[in-house]
């Protein structure tokens, strides 16, 4: 399908870059999955795993950053190659932030006591599952270079936001009502929800990069007339 580069060295580096991104995506998706599960399971060893995975993410992110810079310096990429390198840098940053959020939310999740309201826990879990799916679809659209799928997953952010806001208002209402199981946890549930919402935001950023990589334009997806 795609012809190979005349410069094998260059070709190798570009492939290496993509491989790193794949690696990073896999780790981060795993992180999110584990973190979301920890909301319900409260397994502290799982929480530790997200911590460990985060170190790997950081390492790969550094690799992507250095490799991108090297490619730009030595090979002066243009057109499709340039777009790839450009978006690789930004996507890796987004992924790295996602990883951070996952780690933080897992840490907070295990510190929430088991007496916390089950319904709210479920809501958090569902939000997390929604975010997980959105991230998966977005990353798939990146590697498949699927513009349509990118747009669809971008649009899922609306639903994520809605769920987040609903959860938030529930939490606040219950605090207002001075329900002990909620009040005792303080800001932790709010922050967990926030982390999940932020992961969703980062996913929409990635979706925008996907579209740039494919079309060469940054479009305001809010204004685009796609249903």
């Amino acid at each position, binding site marked *: 399908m795609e*012809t190979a*580069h005349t410069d094998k060295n*260059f070709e190798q580096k570009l492939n290496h870059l993509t491989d790193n991104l794949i690696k990073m995506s896999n780790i981060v998706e795993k992180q999110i999955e584990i973190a979301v599960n920890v909301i319900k399971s409260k397994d502290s060893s799982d929480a530790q795993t997200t911590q460990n995975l985060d170190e790997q993410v950081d390492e790969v992110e550094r690799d992507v950053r250095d490799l991108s810079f090297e490619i730009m310096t030595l090979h002066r990429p*243009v*057109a499709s190659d340039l*777009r790839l390198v450009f978006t690789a840098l930004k996507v890796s940053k987004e992924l790295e932030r996602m990883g951070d959020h996952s780690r933080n939310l897992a840490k907070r999740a295990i510190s929430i006591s088991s007496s916390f309201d089950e319904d709210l826990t479920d809501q958090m879990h569902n939000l997390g599952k929604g975010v997980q799916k959105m991230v998966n679809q977005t990353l798939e659209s990146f590697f498949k270079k699927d513009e349509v799928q990118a747009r669809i997953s971008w649009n899922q952010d609306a639903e994520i936001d809605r769920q987040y806001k609903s959860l938030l208002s529930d939490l606040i209402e219950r605090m207002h009502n001075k329900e002990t199981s909620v009040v005792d946890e303080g800001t932790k549930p709010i922050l967990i929800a926030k982390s999940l919402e932020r992961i969703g935001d980062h996913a929409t950023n990635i979706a925008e990069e996907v579209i740039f990589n494919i079309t060469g334009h940054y479009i305001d997806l809010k204004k685009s007339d796609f249903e």
Partner: protein
Amino acid sequence: MVDQNSNYALQTSEVYVHYGKKMAINNVALNFPKNEVTSLIGPSGCGKSTFLRCLNRMNDVIDICNVKGKFLLNGNVDIYSPDIQVETLREKVGMVFQKPNPFPKTIYENVAYGPKIHGIASSQNELDEIVKDSLHRAGLYEEVKDRMDDIATGLSGGQQQRLCIARAIAIRPEIILMDEPCSALDPIATAKIEDLINELKENYTIIIVTHSMSQASRVSSKTAFFHLGNLVEYGETGKIFTKPDKEQTNDYITGRFG
């Protein structure tokens, strides 16, 4: 594709060029906006130089070369019309070549030759002014003003090429064609010429054939990509180098070409 719009210095359409039976240019239509730099890129043998040479009828000297098509200068003059004197055409459309080719005469004589044979200057003073002005515009005057009577071939490669540009400018063309003008030059000389091209476009329309993609991206506002005699894509240079429409174009400029 051809219109009376005089915003174009040159409009071409339905261009076919054959060398004997072999086709070199296949149905190309390309318009060149005034006072802009258009670059023609493409792999070796793609026809870009052949196309360029049609624009000032340099292909006339090659017997087996057969040129067909419409070439309108300023929207109203067909340069291949039998009414047109090719020497007058070349007053309007100048050319700078790949390897600098100054005449083995003095620097002054090199620049003065064109105006002399076209009778542009009415006095020696006027001729001197034209020579001085052309050398200024080519960014060479300061370097040679004290040695105008030296033989031109004693200059460095970059200086010789700027002299050739001065020579082309001296007859007051509207369009300057450049066929890989920096191929034979070192990077500093190349940079000087690219800077010069940037200045020249204020007063001339420039069409440049180049092997160097980076040069095309630095220097031109419009880029045309040729392959096997076909015009594959034409557009804003920025767009061509970020997101060309055709995959073939992308493959070429990223170096994936077979």
